[in-house]
C-alpha cells in the first residue's frame, strides 16, 4: 500500500497513522519504530497501544537497523510485529526470510523512503553515500518521501573502491592495518548483537568444548573474532553497517564484510537480501559454482 508523497513531517504522521490502525485493528501487537528522547537523541521504541503512537518519529537520525530486533527473544515471543524499515533495513529482513528466521506473514513491514541518514554531527553516514535502496523493495505499507519520488539517484551498481584500496596494500602493510584495529577490540560483541544476521542461539565464541578462540581480549583472539565473524556473514551480509555503527572503538568492520560481499558478487553474481526466494550461495550447491581454487 503506497502512501501519497510527503515531506519529512508528513511522513512521520503517516507512520503514526498506519501504526495506529494496525494496533487498533489488532493486526500487530507491537510496532518497532523510532522516538526522540528528552535529551534530543533518537532511539528505537516499542509501541504496544495506539495511544503511544504519538511518540513515533521519522527523520535523518533514524540510523538504527530495527531488523536486528526481529532476531531477539523480545520480538520472537510476540505474535506479530510491525517494523519501520528503510531500504537497507528491508534487505536485512529479506535475508532473514531467506534463511528461515522470519516468516513473512508474521511481520508487517512499514517501508519508509530514505534519502540518507546522518550521525550526531550531522554528517551523512558512510553507507548512505552509495545507497541504491532509497525506496524499500519489499513492504506492506510504503511511506513515500516526495524527494525520493522524483529524484533519480546516480548510483547504478555496487561500488567497492574502499575494498580495492585495501586489496592493493602489500600483505605486510594490510596485516599491520588489521592488527592495529584488532588491538583496539574490547570484545564487547556489540558487532554480533547489533547485526541482524548474527542470530546463532549459541555463538561459536561462547562454546568451550571445544573452544574455538581464546575468550580473553588478546590480539590473537580479537583478530580471529573479527575475521571469523565476517566469514560467517559471507554471502549473507547486506551491508547495513550496523557493526560499524555500534562498535565503540571504531573498528572499520564493514571493510572485512565488504571484501566478502565483493568476492561473493564476483564469484557467484549474488547480492544478499535482494530476492526472498533465492538461497544464499554458500548454503546451496550448484554445478556452476566456481571451483578454480581446487585445481
Amino acid at each position, binding site marked *: 500500500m503506497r502512501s501519497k508523497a510527503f515531506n519529512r513531517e508528513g511522513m512521520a504522521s503517516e507512520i503514526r497513522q498506519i501504526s495506529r490502525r494496525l494496533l487498533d485493528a489488532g493486526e500487530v501487537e507491537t510496532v518497532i519504530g523510532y522516538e526522540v*528522547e528528552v535529551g534530543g537523541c533518537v532511539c528505537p521504541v516499542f509501541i504496544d497501544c495506539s495511544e503511544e503512537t504519538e511518540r513515533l518519529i521519522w527523520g535523518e537520525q533514524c540510523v538504527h537497523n530495527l531488523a536486528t530486533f526481529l532476531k531477539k527473544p523480545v520480538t520472537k515471543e510476540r505474535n506479530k510485529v510491525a517494523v519501520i524499515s528503510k531500504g537497507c533495513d528491508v534487505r536485512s529482513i529479506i535475508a532473514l526470510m531467506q534463511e528461515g528466521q522470519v516468516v513473512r506473514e508474521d511481520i508487517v513491514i512499514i517501508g519508509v523512503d530514505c534519502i540518507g541518514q546522518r550521525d550526531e554531527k550531522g554528517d551523512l553516514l558512510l553507507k548512505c553515500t552509495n545507497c541504491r535502496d532509497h525506496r524499500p523493495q519489499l513492504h506492506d505499507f510504503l511511506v513515500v518521501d516526495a524527494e525520493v519520488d522524483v529524484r533519480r539517484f546516480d548510483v547504478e551498481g555496487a561500488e567497492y573502491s574502499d575494498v580495492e584500496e585495501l586489496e592493493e596494500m602489500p600483505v605486510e602493510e594490510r596485516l599491520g592495518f588489521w592488527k592495529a584495529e584488532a588491538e583496539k577490540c574490547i570484545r564487547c560483541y556489540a558487532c554480533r548483537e547489533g547485526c541482524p544476521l548474527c542470530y546463532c542461539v549459541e555463538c561459536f565464541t561462547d562454546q568451550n568444548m571445544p573452544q574455538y578462540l581464546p575468550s580473553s581480549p588478546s590480539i590473537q583472539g580479537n583478530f580471529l573474532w573479527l575475521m571469523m565473524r565476517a566469514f560467517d556473514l559471507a554471502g549473507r551480509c547486506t551491508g547495513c553497517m550496523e557493526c560499524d555503527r555500534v562498535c565503540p572503538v571504531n573498528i572499520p568492520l564493514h571493510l572485512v564484510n565488504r571484501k566478502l560481499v565483493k568476492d561473493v558478487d564476483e564469484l557467484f553474481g549474488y547480492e544478499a537480501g535482494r530476492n526472498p526466494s533465492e538461497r544464499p550461495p554458500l548454503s546451496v550447491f550448484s554445478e556452476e559454482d566456481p571451483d578454480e581454487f581446487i585445481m
Partner: protein
Amino acid sequence: MAKKVIDDECLNQFVSLLRQRGYTVVAPRAEGSRIVYGEVETGANFLREYINPQNSPKDFLFPRREELLSFTDDGEVIAVVPEAVKTVLLGVRPCDAMAVQHLDKIFNWDYGDIYYNRRRRNTILIGLACNKPDPTCFCTSFGNGLGPHQKENVDLMLTKLDERSYLVEAVSKTGEELLSLIACGAPGRPSHDEKALKLRERAEKMITKRLDVDTTVKVLDNNFDSDYWKDVARKCIGCGICTYLCPTCYCFDIEDEGTSRLRFWDSCQFTVYSKHATGHNPRDQPYKRYRNRVYHKFVYFKKNFDEVLCVGCGRCKLYCPMKVDIFKIVAEAEVNIVKLGRGGGV
C-alpha cells in the same frame, strides 16, 4: 593544604618532570575521533577539554586482560605479580576518582587482591574539576559528596580558572610532595579560591538530573519481579559496552590459555556469564541480564557497602548503540511500577 596557580607551560613542565622521575603519565588524549586515557610522552599532547575519556582509570588498575600465574609441564606454578609501575593518572574527573574508591572496596572486600593493590599503591591520581558537565551527567545524586569539583578522592586537584591558568591544590600527603616539585607558577591567593568556588557552584547548577537514591534503592528492592524490567530492557541488544566502559563494573573471568592463567573482563550482559555447567541459565532472558546490572549497582552493592555502584558519568548511555538510559530507567522506576500495578508493592 598548599595551593599554586600554574599555566599550560608549567603543567607541561610538571608532566616532563614526572616522566623524568620514572612515572608513566596517563592522561586523556585523542585517538582518531575518540578521547581515551593513554600514556602521554610530553605534557603538550594531552587534552584539556573533554567531558570524560571513553575508557576509565579502571583500565589501568584492573586491566582488561592480565596474567595471574603460569605453569610448566612438570606442574611447577610460577606466580606472576604485576610490575610496580609508578603511574600518574592525570585529568581524572571526580566521578572517575569516586569509581576508584568503589573499586578499592571491592578488591579488598573478602581479601586483598594483590594484583589490583600492587597497581593501586603505585598510582597517583591528579584530578581535574568539571567546569562544564554534560547533560548526561548526574554525579551529584549520590549523597557521598560526589560533585563536579569534588577533590577528596585524588592526590592533587586541578581546577581550570580561565584560558591560561589552573589552580593546583594538594589533597593528600603524596599530593603535597608532588606540589612541592612544581617550581613554576605562583602561590594560590584567596581570589583564586573565590573564582574556583564560583566555577564549582556554576558547574553544580548545570547538573539538572537528580536521583533520589534512597527511594530508588527501596523501590527496586521491592519490585524485582515487576514487568517494568521487561519493558525497559526491550531495546537493549545485550552487548557488553555498558559494562566494559563503566568505571565501576568489575566482573571478570579466569581461564587458562596455553601455560598461562589469565584474568580478563567479563560482562553480566552476556548469555554465557550466568550459564551453569548443566546448561541451565538462571538469567536466560535478556531482561534478566539487564535487570541484574541495574540491581547490582543500585541494590546489591548498596547492601554490601552502603553505597551505590554508579557515579553518574553517563558513559553507559553515551556509548550504548540503542541509547538505553540507566538514569531514566531507575529515576522513573517508582512511577512506572505503580502504573503497571504489579510486583511486590512500592
